[in-house]
């Protein structure tokens, strides 16, 4: 769909409010047809970054390119933005509200009407079309907001905390929809605090903290490049082996198993061999990758 498969590129983008630097020299690329996780602690500059991408704010310096063009008002129609703080007119009927948002994204009234009907059907909200928005539950409003974000079939979707307020059933439904949209080769930027969700959905991630980029890359690369290797172990005996500082850097106990952090240069195979030799009964031996959660904590901790 786009040049070099890059949907969105930020080039040395900075934004200051008075003396406060919200985003400092941020560069990143979001590739087409992938789910890109923008993660970071509160106040890291995520919302400001997103607002610059959707052209609500203009960067002080740097460039934002969407589909190979300088970001402009015209390109706004190809973006769908679901802000973290939801916004719907309380007294408007669901159908009218969606049609209005659709038309503001350049759809004709008729196009908007057919699409909103299809989406309401898909998200099981058809019978609510003529109700006023404030009669809906929070989760339903959340889904209405989501329809308003996707109904104009944007090439780039920006979803801030899309799962908040959804029960597990609806969260699962939403996840299916997102994967469908991804299969249609749409690009999704996914911003969240929930690392487990990011881990489950994202192809690529970018971690920002204190206005700066801390970490970037595909989820796989990030995890494997992350220097921490560990083994989940359940065994009877072999305590002496675990005390060998050449092999083991540390042991954390988790209920019925322990997490063994390998020493630098040590090999998991070597550990297993030594355990078996020592006569320990091994019932679980699994090499574990660091979770995104751990990476987040460590990286944010480091840069604090």
């Amino acid at each position: 769909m786009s040049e070099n498969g890059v949907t969105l590129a930020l080039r040395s983008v900075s934004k200051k409010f008075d003396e406060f630097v919200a985003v400092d020299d941020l560069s990143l690329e979001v590739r087409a047809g992938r789910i890109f996780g923008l993660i970071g602690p509160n106040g890291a500059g995520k919302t400001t970054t997103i607002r610059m991408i959707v052209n609500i704010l203009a960067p002080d310096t740097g460039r934002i390119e969407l589909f190979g063009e300088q970001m402009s008002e015209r390109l706004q129609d190809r973006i769908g933005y679901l802000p973290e703080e939801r916004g719907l007119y309380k007294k408007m009927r669901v159908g009218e509200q969606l049609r209005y948002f659709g038309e503001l994204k350049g759809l004709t009234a008729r196009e908007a009407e057919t699409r909103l009907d299809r989406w309401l059907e898909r998200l099981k909200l058809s019978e609510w079309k003529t109700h006023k928005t404030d009669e809906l539950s929070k989760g339903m409003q959340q889904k209405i907001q989501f329809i308003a974000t996707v109904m104009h079939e944007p090439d780039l979707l920006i979803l801030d905390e899309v799962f908040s307020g959804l029960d597990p059933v609806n969260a699962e439904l939403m996840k299916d929809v997102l994967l469908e949209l991804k299969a249609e080769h749409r690009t999704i930027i996914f911003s969240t605090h929930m690392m487990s969700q990011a881990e489950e959905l994202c192809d690529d991630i970018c971690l920002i903290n204190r206005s700066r980029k801390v970490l970037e890359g595909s989820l796989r690369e990030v995890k494997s490049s992350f220097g921490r290797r560990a083994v989940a172990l359940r065994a009877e005996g072999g305590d002496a082996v675990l005390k060998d500082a050449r092999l083991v850097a540390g042991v954390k106990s988790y209920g019925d198993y322990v997490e063994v952090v390998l020493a630098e240069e040590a090999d998991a195979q070597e550990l297993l061999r030594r355990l078996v030799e020592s006569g320990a009964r091994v019932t679980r031996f699994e090499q574990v990758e660091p979770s995104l959660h751990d990476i987040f904590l460590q990286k944010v901790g480091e840069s604090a």
Partner: protein
Amino acid sequence: MKKLLVIIRREYLGRLRTKGFVISSVLGPLIMIGFTVVPGLLISMQTSSATKVAVVDLTGKMYEGVRESILTSRDEEGDRREGGRKNETAQPAVVQPGGEAQLQQAVQAVGAQYEVEQVATGGRPVEEIKHELNARVRKGELGVYLVLPEKILEEGRAEYYGRNVSDPITTSQLRHSLNRAVIEQRLREANIDQNRVRQLSKNIVLETTKVSEGGLERDSGGGFALAMFVGLFIYMAILMYGQVILSSVVEEKTTRVSEVLFSSVKPFHLMLGKLAGVALVAITQYALWAVAFGAFALYGVGMLASRGMDVPLPRLPLSFAIYALLFFVLGFLMYATIYLIVAAMVTTEKEAGQMAMPVIFLSVISIYLAFPVIRNPNSSFSFWVSIAPFFSPITMLVRIVTETPPFWQIALSLGIGMASVVFFVWLAARVYRVGMLMYGKSASLPEVLRWLKQS
């Protein structure tokens, strides 16, 4: 541009369907009709039966004159204007048109009547007669009684007793009648023919004619009233719809819809769309009222005319009506931008508290400015105030109806007016975007000025 229309349509249609709009559209004319019809009905109810007036004449020679004067009292104003052509018929219920005082006219229209009777003194002391008459007044047999002292001609004092002494119509009519009778008696005793005096003291009639580019036209003074009316209408519309604009902007802030909107449209378009949509609602409301009022006025004027009442309708050229409409719309938009800017600065409607202040301030100033402009419509002062934003809707209209300025000046005034509206909308949009999205809080004036400097 297409999106702007979408916004205008939502603001307009959404508001037409609200209960408030429907209610005020129906209630407005009803209240208007109520204010004009009900007082008339009330007055006609009170005076539907003749008021009995008893006269205690201590001079022994005034009664006949006073009686005639009271029974013909309604002719008095007409007599004066028509130069003393005395109406000899003493028919009290005859309606005579042309009174200048509206009060008088209202009474005439409903046909107030008096019955006059003389109280025989029979040499009794005054206090005793009064006592007797007071009793009759209390019983309701008598409305009013007048005591004419012996020295009424010299001292010019008489006494009025009645249950209701604060009824302005009766007291003023009786005072007028008594006054006339006393003056006539004085003239008679000085051997002066009162008819001759009337002829000699006949008032003049000043016919005012306006000289303008279109030739000579008669101007009944309705022109100036038109300018003031437009000013009043602008002010009323702002009072009604300024708050609507304010809450419409603030609602989007509190519900956080604005962030979604700004990812689709420019704040400038949003603000302009709101202003235009609400202005259309206001115009629609006024148009509905105008139709209702027009129908009522036609009916009412016809009814009054059929009862012999002459209702002077201001005759104004069509161009005035068009200018009045244009400047009304311009004035509404200008003052509405004040609400737009304040709405951009605050986060809740409560904070907007003293909103109406600058609007009142500016509109009062423009009414004050109208007076020097009337006196000197072509001075350079008049020129400058009639093109200045916020003052032009009223001052330029005053100039148009008094001494129509060259067309380019009117066009300039409209042009500057519209440009300033666009500028203020832009300003509001800027304050809105910078203030809300960057800081998410209400702004003080210095902060706003600082934000305007940054991008």
